[in-house]
């Protein structure tokens, strides 16, 4: 179950409302690597992630989960292989935080006993530094607190592939860094981690691989150093930037508008 599961997509195309949101995208998401999907608003980041997670069906092209075609994987199995956190997820009912986290174990049904489930939930809550929130109703949480609970829900299944859309958007800096470290650890443990990110400095600092989208097309993919060049960032975002190494760590700084 916890075998590494790289994802490979080839010529992925997707239209929504007569608009081509993904246009012949071919890219790889390695197991054991933290991959960021970046691009300006409307570039197709969320669509690509939903597509990978199976939340958006009916795309043309080829999607491989490991050595299997995604289409041949049942929805239930896919849910056990891929955990997905959409950009916006608002709980409909005011359940307590740990109950929301436990929903992440739904794909396993009864195959995990309740004792084991509770352990998993508390471990996931620890991972996101939210143990103190466990008995709070989710509608009473702040945006950042809720986001952390949702991240715990993402992690609780210990799926080999983690896909999160803007996971750190509502978080303060400390929790953002904590979050990226968590994802880093997950990737280091052999998982395929795919994040849509707006925060390019964070992407540069923590990610192994960057997929850059522009207008639904793949603009570039590769290591941060290779993708986040001043030319490409300037072209795609219209912003001056610099990618440099400092004390052996990558650092990305933005400047003025082009």
């Amino acid at each position, binding site marked *: 179950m916890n075998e590494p599961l790289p994802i490979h997509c080839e010529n992925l195309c997707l239209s929504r409302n007569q608009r081509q949101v993904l246009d012949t995208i071919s890219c790889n998401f390695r197991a054991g690597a933290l991959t960021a999907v970046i691009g300006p608003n409307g570039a197709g980041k969320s669509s690509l992630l*939903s597509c990978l*997670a*199976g*939340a958006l*069906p009916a795309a043309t092209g080829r999607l491989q989960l490991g050595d299997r075609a995604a289409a041949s994987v049942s*929805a*239930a199995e*896919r*849910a*056990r292989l*891929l*955990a*997905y*956190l*959409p950009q*916006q*997820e*608002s*709980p*409909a*009912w*005011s*359940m*307590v935080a740990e*109950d*929301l986290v436990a*929903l*992440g174990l*739904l*794909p396993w*049904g009864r195959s995990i006993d309740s004792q084991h489930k509770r352990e998993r939930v508390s471990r996931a809550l620890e991972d996101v530094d939210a143990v103190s929130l466990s008995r709070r*109703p989710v*509608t009473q949480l702040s945006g950042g607190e809720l986001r952390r609970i949702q991240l715990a*829900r993402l992690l609780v299944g210990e799926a080999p592939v983690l896909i999160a859309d803007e996971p750190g958007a509502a978080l303060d800096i400390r929790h953002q860094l904590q979050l990226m470290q968590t994802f880093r650890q997950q990737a280091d443990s052999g998982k395929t981690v795919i994040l849509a990110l707006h925060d390019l400095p964070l992407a540069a600092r923590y990610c192994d691989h960057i997929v850059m989208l522009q207008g639904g097309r793949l603009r570039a993919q590769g290591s941060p150093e290779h993708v986040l060049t001043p030319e490409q960032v300037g072209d795609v975002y219209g912003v001056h930037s610099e990618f440099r190494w400092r004390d052996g760590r990558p650092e990305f700084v933005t400047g003025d508008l082009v």
Partner: protein
Amino acid sequence: MLANRKVILTLLACALPLAMLAALSSGPVSIDIPAAIVDGWYSDSSDAVILWQLRLPRAVLAILVGAALGLGGAAMQGMLRNPLAEPALLGVSSGAALAAILVLYYGAVSIGLVLPLLAILGALLAVASVWLLAGRGASASRLVLAGVAINAFLSALMALALNYAPSMFAMQEIVFWLLGSLANRGWDQVLLALPFVLIGALFLFFSRNYLRALSLGEASASSLGFGGRRYPLLVLFGIAFAVGSSVAVAGTIGFIGLVVPHLMRPLVGQDPGRLLWASALAGALLLLLADVLVLNTVGTQELRIGAVTAFIGAPFFFWLIVKGRREASL
């Protein structure tokens, strides 16, 4: 807190047989219940006949219909992710009632399977219309708007049916049908509704995890393995079977589906899956108690049970609005 919830749920479960006893001892004729029980099912003594053939089926039907309505309300709220969803409020019961009226007055009076099946079809069409019109995860206002629109349309059709009713008596009948009643029902009616309610409950049982996953939203639910049209259809059919068949035998009884899931939700930790069974239990209890109330105060013929539940439900709705305004969450 957790212990409290369990205690309350256990109390509710214990209250059901007590309410059943109360229902069995309520009626216009006073009977000797122990003797009637001793006499047994096949006895010809009037006490036994009253107990086994009149009061018991009526109480069982109250439980069945109440459970089906509670279940339908809980499922509908879960699927639409909205606490305002209610089968009667959103036209599901009207759809079933309209179909039933059309069968009763404009078709053959073929009692049997035609009536429940058509009522289920009517309920299905109504709930599917609301679902398609409002969309899943619709805001409260859009949902109520869609429900009101569907209900208005069905009311128009019902007005048309009233207008072209074959006689004045048929009009009265339609009105009575819309008020809902448990009077004069027997085992035949119980057996007519039971299989369909059970099928509906089974459908909803299989969709309980979908409803749970759906509390995170549609995208998350589909990433948790509950994508596609299969699950929504399962819920739609489940609601239609449960509510449609109850309407087919008891007319439209409103507000159970609204009030009960609301009251039960805190007791099950807001879990839409467990809410189904808690609502079925509480719905059964509420309708049975309402029936006992009617039997012991005004008598069964003068006041229809649907009017009673409306009197319970409407103030509850007011309370919801006031509470919503206070919390500014509506």
